[in-house]
């Protein structure tokens, strides 16, 4: 018998749970009850799928990347094109699900945290579409490096609240969003952007993202017609990866999550949570995190704002600990080279986050036989990253 996670207490093995101030216990209970009720309601599920199809543009394509496959000369490479989703990344799948739930719960105000700005844009988008008021917390460093997304959020009518604590990145934005939620939980819905946070958030976000894996499985079987041998996804908080992996967990497929190694896992400047971190509690959940010997959370680093996070979703901690998924780490440099390669060979500019998955997959594809197949989750497009990309490659022209 396969164990179904999470259990009643929101645990994935040892991981997960609800490590939150007492004030949040009631809103989390309210959320869990509303969520369970909604997920059991065929009408709600149908509405979610309807919005995904007619508004967001699902299903997204599964693209055979023939040029890069030929060039690398190894396994055949497929891309799941979440970059083609409305607003440019997988984040919208989850934002739609949670916004519909917020509406159902009668909550008219949403709050969100964002790193790369993709979840902020997705939240601002659903807020505009469904008539909700939206506040997005964003670190000052991320506001600087993801400027186009800040502008998009504002155009969509969201209020962007700059966060200056820490290094001004995703961790700090999440802290501030949670603090705001504590004070305003009676009429605000916290629309979390990844499979992190206290139970039931990791489960809810996974269930709203598993559409990626469900579709991929169907598309692969229609095309190939076997399952892929390897699946790669980048891991920040872990939502695009869990969404892709979850439907394949029972299958004979090797799953690889790719973290950000920043300037290298042997430097202080990385965000390789599983590779270098230890057990601990962050943002309401027992998981792995980057911390010092005294249990203080350390500041992560990655060129990619979406992966620049010292924690990881508890289900990933469990999949890592139980060795069901292999986790690797890719440096800024490797990711940016993969980004350039995909752009030049396939005519697709990927998000810097997604480029981490590409880099690891390309590295391994070369040495695999041609009858093997690889699926990479292309979690988003690179439009938001043009400044980062130009800055990285300047002087190379």
């Amino acid at each position: 018998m396969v164990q179904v996670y999470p259990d009643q207490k929101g645990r994935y093995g040892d991981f997960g749970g609800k490590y939150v101030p007492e004030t949040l216990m009631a809103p989390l209970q309210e959320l869990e009850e509303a969520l369970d009720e909604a997920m059991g309601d065929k009408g709600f599920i149908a509405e979610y799928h309807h919005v995904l199809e007619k508004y967001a543009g699902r299903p997204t394509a599964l693209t055979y990347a023939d040029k890069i496959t030929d060039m690398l000369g190894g396994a055949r490479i497929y891309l799941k094109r979440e970059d083609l989703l409305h607003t440019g990344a997988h984040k919208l799948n989850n934002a739609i699900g949670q916004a519909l739930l917020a509406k159902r719960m009668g909550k008219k105000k949403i709050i969100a945290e964002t790193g790369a700005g993709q979840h902020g844009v997705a939240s601002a988008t659903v807020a505009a579409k469904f008539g909700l008021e939206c506040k997005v917390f964003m670190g000052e460093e991320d506001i600087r490096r993801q400027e186009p997304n800040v502008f998009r959020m504002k155009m969509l009518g969201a209020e962007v609240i700059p966060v200056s604590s820490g290094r001004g990145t995703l961790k700090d934005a999440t802290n501030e969003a949670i603090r705001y939620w504590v004070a305003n939980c009676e009429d605000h819905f916290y629309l979390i952007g990844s499979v992190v946070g206290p139970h039931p958030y990791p489960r809810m976000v996974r269930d709203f993202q598993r559409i990626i894996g469900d579709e991929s499985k169907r598309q692969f079987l229609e095309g190939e017609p076997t399952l892929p041998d390897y699946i790669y996804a980048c891991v920040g908080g872990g939502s695009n990866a869990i969404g892709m992996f979850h439907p394949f967990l029972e299958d004979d497929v090797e799953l690889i999550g790719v973290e950000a190694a920043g300037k290298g896992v042997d430097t202080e400047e990385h965000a390789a949570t599983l590779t270098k971190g230890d057990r601990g509690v962050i943002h309401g959940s027992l998981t792995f995190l980057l911390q010092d010997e005294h249990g203080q959370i350390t500041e992560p680093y990655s060129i990619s704002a979406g992966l620049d996070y010292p924690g990881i979703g508890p289900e990933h901690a469990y999949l890592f600990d139980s060795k069901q998924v292999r986790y690797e780490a890719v440096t800024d440099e490797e990711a940016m080279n993969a980004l350039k390669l995909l752009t030049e060979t396939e005519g697709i500019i990927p998000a810097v986050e997604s480029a981490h998955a590409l880099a690891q997959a390309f590295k391994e594809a070369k040495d695999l036989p041609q009858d093997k197949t690889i699926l990479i989750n292309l979690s988003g497009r690179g439009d938001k990253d043009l400044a980062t990309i130009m800055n990285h490659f300047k002087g190379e022209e």
Partner: protein
Amino acid sequence: MLTQTSFQGKLSKTEDLFIPFIEAGDPAPEVTIELALKLQDAGADILELGIPYSDPLADGPTIQRAAKRALENGMSLKQAIELIPTMREKGLDIPVVIFTYYNPVLRIGEEKFFELLEQYGAEGVLIPDLPYEESESVRELALNHDIEYISLVAPNSEERIQKIASDARGFLYCVSTLGVTGGENQLSSEVTDFIERVKKHSPVPVAVGFGISTNDDVRMIREHADGVIIGSKIIRLVEAEVENLKDEQKREEALDRFYHNVRELVE
């Protein structure tokens, strides 16, 4: 089991309690010791000694700043606990409650943490991000080490109040409003209803904290609860003297001003 706990042994009364909060290491370890003694002189009945944390989710900007100052001084969970014996030598005889987020406890190990608390003479512990449902092992360890595990209830705890209160030890911490520490809230009549409800279920003194910053607040809470917990306001009084407290030449006078300000607050 009828014998007194160390906490009860050190507590001189069970109503009209004044429970101040300071952050260990803010602005320096030796100053923390002096501030503790001044607070006792000013009438403190229990000392809440905060452990600075990098990501304090339940705290507003004031305590975040205090934590930052303390961490810059290299303060850690273990070092903070090690300050207690010096406080005792210098005459502190009220119970000390360690206030810490859960991650530093996990890091050092729950067993080791309680061994340290017992060894260095703390009487209580409060972990703001460890709700009742996650606290079973910690509550059991606390019991075995003669440490009171302080629980919190919030205005939206509703039916949870009874469950939490029935297992309460030391004192029961009533969070006055929805929100993080340091808000300058208007204490409403809803607070008094809430306090009365909690008191009905609590076997231990009921103390109220979060956002209590004026003498009027203190007076109002005193009428209804058994104790008042003051955190951010005390930290702001420390903050006002930060530079003087760090300067050995000016410290004595700064401590006196701090004492008088605290007296004015709780008189």
